[in-house]
């Protein structure tokens, strides 16, 4: 009986929280490092199609995005789909230069792994995509990917 009494008499214990800030800071630094603050600012609308056979990109730094879609600022750029490279609305003629600039950012050994990702809106016609494809072939950037969101097999029709 005395044993039980002893325990009761201890009362509530306080947990030592002095290391809590350290733990939180550790998590904080992790997320600070993992966060990429700014992606490309979107100038065109890209709601991507769905597909079941999509694959994940190997490495994000090896992927160069080309956005195609109707401009968000229709009063400036009109309604017809345009190409966006980095942060700028561009034309098909700028694609080669864009790829050349992106190639300079990586080492020579990595160049064959560079993938161009076309993130195009559902409503875009193939003509503009085909022009981009031709430009990419001209500059020998042959790894291509059409960005699509994952959907289970059979659901796509």
């Amino acid at each position: 009986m005395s044993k039980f009494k002893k325990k009761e008499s201890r009362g509530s214990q306080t947990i030592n929280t002095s290391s809590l800030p350290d733990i939180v800071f550790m998590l904080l630094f992790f997320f600070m490092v993992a966060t990429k603050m700014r992606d490309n600012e979107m100038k065109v609308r890209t709601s991507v199609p769905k597909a079941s056979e999509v694959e994940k990109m190997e490495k994000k730094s090896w992927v160069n995005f080309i956005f195609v879609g109707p401009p968000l600022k229709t009063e400036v750029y009109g309604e017809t789909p345009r190409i966006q490279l980095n942060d700028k609305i561009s034309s098909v003629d700028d694609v080669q230069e864009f790829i050349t600039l992106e190639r300079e950012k990586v080492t020579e050994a990595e160049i064959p792994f560079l993938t161009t990702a076309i993130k195009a809106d559902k409503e875009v016609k193939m003509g503009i995509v085909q022009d981009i494809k031709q430009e990419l072939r001209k500059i020998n950037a042959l790894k291509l990917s059409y960005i699509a969101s994952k959907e289970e097999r059979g659901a796509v029709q």
Partner: protein
Amino acid sequence: MARKPRSVPEINAGSMADIAFLLLVFFLVTTTMDIPTGLQVGLPPIPDGPPPESKQRQKNVLEVLINSRNQLLVEGDLAEISQLNEITKTHLLNEGRDPRYAESSEEAIVSLKNDRGTDFVTYVGVYNEIKRAYNEVRDEYSEAKFGKPFAKLKKKSVPYDEVKKKYPIKISEAEPEDMGGN
């Protein structure tokens, strides 16, 4: 001259955790870790000079055409996207039985041709269906022979290469052409 021992003022660090939490929550919310997914495609290099005379026998090539109204023509017949998976599979698994389809899976080619007016979503849908047929055929073969689906096979291992060799993904895209009718 003994100095009076000065008391060192202590900073109350109790709210440190709160501040850190606030920042943590901010970064948690802003972090995006999604990896983009997409349909991987290999483009053919631009040939030097005129394209070589095709040596492919007609029956090894499954011709898929998409027009500007997003209608599908497979081997000269109208078709729906939903049928494409089945047709491609028949083409791949034919092994010379039906003279209209491929003689062997190793030589089977799917030729995809689209119009400039085709919708991107239709094109991706068609490409996806063809790729799905290939992946499913590969899975079936791999399942029957090695007991697990193709995706579970180790890359560059002998079974992996064998499946890949048996069903090579050959989706050829014709030189762009304006078929008109916008």
